[in-house]
């Protein structure tokens, strides 16, 4: 199945800009479904970006992050062709990981 993580990592000069969009419902546990029953909380809790064995960026998320969450940041030191490892885990123990080459 295609990964749930879409990443775009582009480097210019010493700075690499990273954008990620993740396919995930991010249910808060406070919303009712059409039958009136509470949809249980189901949200990504931690998202990690690893380069060269080091966590360059770690996101701790609560239930207020939008559905199909998006995040953008940039970091120094990497160059074209380097690999970036992205992984997330959610409150139901679900997880996914992918790697992306810096363009």
């Amino acid at each position, binding site marked *: 199945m295609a990964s749930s993580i879409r990443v775009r990592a582009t480097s210019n000069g010493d700075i690499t800009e990273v954008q990620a969009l993740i396919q995930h419902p991010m249910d808060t546990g406070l919303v009712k479904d059409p039958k009136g*029953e509470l949809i*249980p909380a189901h949200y990504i809790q931690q998202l990690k970006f690893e380069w060269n064995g080091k966590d360059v960026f770690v996101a701790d998320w609560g239930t*207020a992050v*939008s559905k199909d969450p998006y995040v953008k940041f*940039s970091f120094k030191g990497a160059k074209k062709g380097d690999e970036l490892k992205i992984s997330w885990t959610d409150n139901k123990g679900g997880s996914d990981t992918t790697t992306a080459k810096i363009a």
Partner: protein
Amino acid sequence: MTTTTGPVATRRLILQGAASVALLGLGNLPFTATSARAAANDKYPEEAFKQKNEADAIKALYGKTAEPSDKVKLDAPEIAENGGVVPVSVTTTLDKVSSISFLVAENPYALAASYKIAEGTIPAIANRLKMAKSTKLVAIVEADGKLYSATKEVKVTVGGCGG
């Protein structure tokens, strides 16, 4: 839309509620245990995300209070086009930044997101948050051990003519 009212539905609701809370708790116990072995500051700030209001969340997360600073630039719309997807971003000229967090004061749980910034990572983040209603939005930056903050009011209402 038939809603199964009466005792059966409420019992199932309570059971479901209890189950998901237990799961939440359970789900985290081993999680925190394993991550304890990983870098200390990697632990998911479970407590902080449970706090209702903004001050308690900041205390639970950082254990100190923040002072407003114009070196923290918080960008968010004046009127959100939709409460479910509000683009929010922050940049700062402070250096030695180790953490950035976003808090939505009027949400059921104030802390929305918290980021750990490694050495060499630029202290600027954009993300999309949910806001329950018109609210104060707070960005916290931890730089060199001290906390700085910026706030912005965001108006949120539903759209359309109601039906």
